């Protein structure tokens, strides 16, 4: 996966130890890293006639969701919800761009596999973040 190079906590302890801001940064980085490949992927599968229409619409939906998620997290970050201090947005975008080129060379199954994993990562990190920030809600 093109995001394999990113250093992300792969255990619970690490994920709990890492400060929130960093975690958020990571999340954003991940999301950013997938923005480009997803759109590329969508373009790619549009030409695949054998795929049912559901898949095509779902893929579009997913890339929208990723985009919205990123926007939301950025918003939270800028509002200071995540961290107590206002950090400027570290430019995750630059970091994301460099690695996204590799994604274009992946095969479709690898692409989907990598995306699945990374979305799971993002979800887990966000959940940890949530329980750290607001522990009373079902944590």
């Amino acid at each position: 996966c093109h995001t394999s190079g990113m250093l992300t906590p792969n255990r619970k302890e690490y994920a709990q130890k890492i400060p929130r801001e960093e975690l958020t940064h990571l999340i954003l980085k991940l999301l950013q890293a997938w923005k480009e490949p997803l759109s590329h992927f969508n373009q790619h599968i549009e030409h695949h006639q054998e795929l049912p229409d559901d898949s095509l619409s779902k893929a579009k939906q997913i890339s929208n969701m990723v985009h919205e998620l990123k926007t939301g997290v950025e918003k939270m970050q800028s509002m200071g919800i995540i961290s107590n201090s206002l950090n400027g947005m570290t430019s995750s975008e630059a970091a994301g761009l460099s690695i996204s080129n590799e994604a274009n060379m992946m095969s479709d199954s690898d692409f989907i596999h990598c995306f699945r994993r990374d979305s799971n990562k993002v979800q887990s990190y966000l959940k940890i973040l949530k329980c750290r920030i607001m522990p009373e809600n079902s944590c």
Partner: protein
Amino acid sequence: MKQKLRSSVQIILLFALTAVGLTGQSYPGKPKIIRCRSLEKETFSCWWKPGSDGGLPTNYTLFYSKDSEEKIYECPDYGMSGPNSCYFDKNHTNAWTTYNITVMATNEIGSNSSDPQYVDVTSIVQPDAPVNLSLETKTSASTTYLWAKWSSPPLADVTSNSHVYHYELRLKPEEKEEWETVSVGVQTQYKVNRLQAGVKYVVQVRCMLDIGEWSEWSSERHIHIPNGESPPEKPTIIKCRSPEKETFTCWWKPGSDGGHRTNYTLLYSKEGEERVYECPDYKTAGPNSCYFDKKHTSFWTIYNITVKATNEIGSNVSDPLYVDVTYIVQTDPPVNVTLELKKTVNRKPYLVLTWSPPPLADVRSGWLTLDYELRLKPEEAEEWETIFVGQQTHYKMFSLNPGKKYIVQIHCKPDHHGSWSEWSLEKDIQIPTDFRIKDMVVWIIVGVLSSLICLVMSWTMVLKGYRMIAFILPPVPGPKIKGIDTHLLETGKSEELLSALGCHGFPPTSDCEELLIEYLEVEDSEDQQLMPSHDSGHPSKNTKIIAKETDSDSGRGSCDSPSLLSEKCRESRAILSTLQTQDIRDAQENNGGRHCETHCIASEQKIILFNNESTKSSTWPAAQLPDNQPPMFAYHSTVDAHKITPCTVNVNIAPVLAENEEKHQPQCPIMETVHDNMEKQREMENLYSKTDQSTVQVKQNRPNDKSPFLKPKLMDYVEVHKVRQDKEPAVLLKHKENSGKTEKYTVPGTSKEYTKVSTVVDHNILVLMPDSRIQHISASQEPAMETPQNLQQGQAEKNMSYCLTVPSECKRETSASEYMDPSSFIPAFK
């Protein structure tokens, strides 16, 4: 000659053969029953081989009979065991009978049947071979055993599993030819000891029931017996699981160990790394397992796990398993499941469930998020109702039935990847029945209201029951017959009635009130229908009699001219509804013949009397006076005359009614009697005066109606007063005493006496001639004209009565009543 015969036969054969050859069609060849076999003693099948089909489509039918019974049955199921087979199911199979089976092949031309096959089910039992033979080698204490396991043969009817099979096992080394057979008994497994190591063996099993034959040998199974020199077999990894998304465990299954101690090692490598690690912990999770603790567990990385089996000779490596721990999470079930009943505002109970996540799962930190699902059912129900709850750990259930006991279970799953856990332990709760005062009040009110309604209804029924019943079930209307005065009938004034009916003189004089019979007018025309009125004393008898009379045909002795008679009988029957005779009838219980006679006679009479225009009268010489016989009628014996009519055909029936004499003799005797009477009449006539008229002199004394008997008055009996033998011979009849009953017969001239019949008018009116002392008979006509119908009726009745009285006990009756003895009959006029 012989030669000719022979040659002709040859020619015929030739022709036949040619015909067959030309057309290519013939009757089918003989089928042959190949075999019959039973799998388990309860069903069996037979297969046959068709012969040639003769070029035409051939139908095969299988017939069988049991033991030595005659009855032949046909095959119950043709297709079950395949083509050209017959399957006998449980219902058609008797174990201890011999079946005689034949197969018949039929085509358009002809048929051919096979030789019979005698089949005893018990002798053709042969089960299928056993199945699922599996072989395993086990090594212990440096000896290797072979474990063979198998299953009993499958049966189409799986319900009958009570068959006990005996098994036999045979094995041999692959290269050898000779089998070693071992009897196993009823077990489905066997341990073979004496094996040569390092040799490949072939194993087979077969089975048998307590009767019959051994099955075929099962398919072969090969196994290689490990000797000490072989490396272990390849192990297989079963599964890897993580219970809380922090650690995980892998289990594997070892293969055969090749005769020596085998060591198993689990080796893994991570994604992106080349380094191979060995399992950190073999013990924690049990034998043949590897436990990865927290430190060794990384997520979002793929592990490449293999197991290696090593023994002294060599080693063997299992297939690798690639696993990402994130996706293999399966937790324990939730704990602390509590059920609580609470009540809503409306006092309705609802169930509150709460539970806790499994202890190991770290939900607090958000690392692991679980979805929950619960299921519940009423205690006795079969199916669960599953409800997805989501991530919350509580749930409220509202729509539960009071009084029932519910069972609840919960399980959980990590959201988005992972497997559902096991279900938690069952928890039950009893919903209390809801007893509310309000409900009871409602029921009490309902009960009171319904009882009130019932009371009201019963009250109305009691008070107006009849009307209601009449409203619901209207009474069946009785028949209405036109032309009769029902009141008259009901009042029971017999004389009046009789007079109304025109019957005269029938009821005997004096003490004959009870003998009054009501007559039904028998009429030609349709509208003469009278409702019969029953004499008070003997309604039943009368009806009975009449009923009997309706049957005119059956063996009525001399009631012949059957067709006509029957016609007439029918007619009169139709008209006559209930004719009641009095004691006469009672006294003389009518036998059938009598009835018949009576009826016939009566009908005849009537017909004669009233229907003389019709052809019926043609049969009767009724209106016609017989030439040979003077129409003498004992006045009592209209019946006689009636009877005479069929018998003699020469009797003028009509004016016979003077008195119902008890001519209870059978018809012909009656005839005779009448004949006698007629003779007497004749004699008398001769005595008194010979008249050209062959009319019978009927003297009839009707107390109430002195018209000729045709008059529709009650017939009355008159006693002979005396026989006059003066110049006008006559039989004087006593005047009826109880004349009050019937209408007084008014005669012009008080002392008129009608001595003789002058003429018969219209075949139904008797004109009586008055005495010389009396005026002529205009009066006599009157009654005739007055109510001819009545007369006729009366006549009919009289006839009837006569009829009835005639049979058998006439003599008796004669003595008993005031009937005129025909022998002593002398026409007398009063």
